[in-house]
């Protein structure tokens, strides 16, 4: 049996550190000791698999998946689409992509969100899909609104959509947020600015994609996601004969 190969080391310069003082909640929720480096074994290079029996075909359409019959949510209609690739630039097919977001007014349908912008009766705010054989995914939704949050006294989140992606291995598991090109709140946001590398922030910014728009209907943004790549060689490193 071929032994599975391990995944490339995470580039810590791309990811936010655990302790980021301007994002105040990280103070008490960040480990103080360093993470202990673990050689990947079978439980790290494997992960859950999902199929079309797990989700429904309409789960990726946030314009309709919680709307009353014949109605749709208020807001700018968008297609949010892209590919899931790995660091070797290969597509990650048939992987689960889940999203959640505020409505066009910046309000989440969540019992803990008390922001004064109203709930939209036609908008749930979550969706999920599987990438196709080429790693491609798409959602229809409304562009989320900016909203204030309790951090410094006057912090506002830029418009964003939360993404959860699996890949093929538990060590690839990733949750992130997608922002929208041109939003002036991006450089002011303490959560965005937890990321030390400006290029990595650019990578979280969806680009206007005119070629994917549907004329007179829906505007489009493109957001590609890269998961950790995998070595071509096997991971046993004991010398022969020992």
């Amino acid at each position, binding site marked *: 049996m071929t032994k*599975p190969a391990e995944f490339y080391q*995470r580039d810590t310069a*791309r*990811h*936010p*550190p*655990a302790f980021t003082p301007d*994002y105040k*909640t*990280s*103070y*008490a*929720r*960040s480990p*103080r*000791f*360093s*993470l*202990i480096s*673990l*050689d990947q*074994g*079978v*439980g790290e290079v*494997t*992960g*859950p*698999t999902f199929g079309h029996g*797990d989700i429904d075909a309409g*789960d990726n359409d946030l314009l309709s998946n*919680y709307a009353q019959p014949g109605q749709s949510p208020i807001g700018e209609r968008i297609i949010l689409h892209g590919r899931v*690739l790995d660091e*070797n*630039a290969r597509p990650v097919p048939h992987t689960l992509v889940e999203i*959640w977001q505020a409505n066009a007014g910046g309000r*989440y349908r*969540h*019992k*803990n*969100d008390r922001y004064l912008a109203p709930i939209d009766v036609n908008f*749930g*705010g979550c969706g*999920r899909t599987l990438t196709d054989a080429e790693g491609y995914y798409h959602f229809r939704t409304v562009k989320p609104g900016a909203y204030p949050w309790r951090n410094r006294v006057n912090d506002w989140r830029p418009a964003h959509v*939360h993404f*959860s992606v699996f890949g093929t291995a*538990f060590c690839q*598991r*990733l*949750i*992130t*947020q997608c922002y929208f090109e041109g939003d002036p709140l991006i450089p002011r946001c303490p*959560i965005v600015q*937890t990321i030390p590398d400006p290029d*990595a922030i650019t*990578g979280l910014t969806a680009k206007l994609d005119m070629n994917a728009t549907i004329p007179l209907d829906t505007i489009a943004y493109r957001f590609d*996601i*890269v998961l*950790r790549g995998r070595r071509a060689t096997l991971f046993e*490193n*004991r010398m022969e004969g020992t």
Partner: protein
Amino acid sequence: MMADDLGYLKETASQTAGPYVHIGLAPGAAGFDIYDCELGWDIAGPNAAGERIRVQGRVIDGTGSPVKDVMIEVWQANAAGQFAHPDGGGEVEDGFRGWGRVITDFQTGDWAFDTVKPGPCPGRNGATQAPHLNLWIVARGINLGLHTRIYFADEGAANAADPVLTMIEWENRRTTLLAERVEGDGPATYRFDIRLQGDGETVFFDI
């Protein structure tokens, strides 16, 4: 998306799951029904082999307070030490998924999940790993999901030979990965509290 000189891409940066992670990953808990089937509530279905166990605990922050908006994912082997994946060491039984999600009670921070106790599984270079559950923890204030493991305190001999536990340089920190058996009626129950920071800080892994 720009490839580097060798043609590699860079991994997408992580961002916190935020306070409303439940909307996307456990909408019923957020307060609304939208999907016919929420994912992650069936780690080990009725047909799965092995001892039924419950694992319960809290996630505690650096002030000593319970974290009430955390989401934990579990990834584990079955009772025969196999993962439900093509590279997982063998075919698992129908109904065993080995993956699940659990969120905390918003008022108390308590969480619990039901599963089967995993068997030992192969480690690297011919070693055997003691029974364990792999966890991934995300929440508001956690910028990159935290990986840790639950081992079982009543597996003393297997734990003493486990290549991951014994690799942890500080022996007094190894106990942060041990779930203690709780005496009582009903299914076997283990207690596992996760301390994000401070006294008894849980060991987290860079994998």
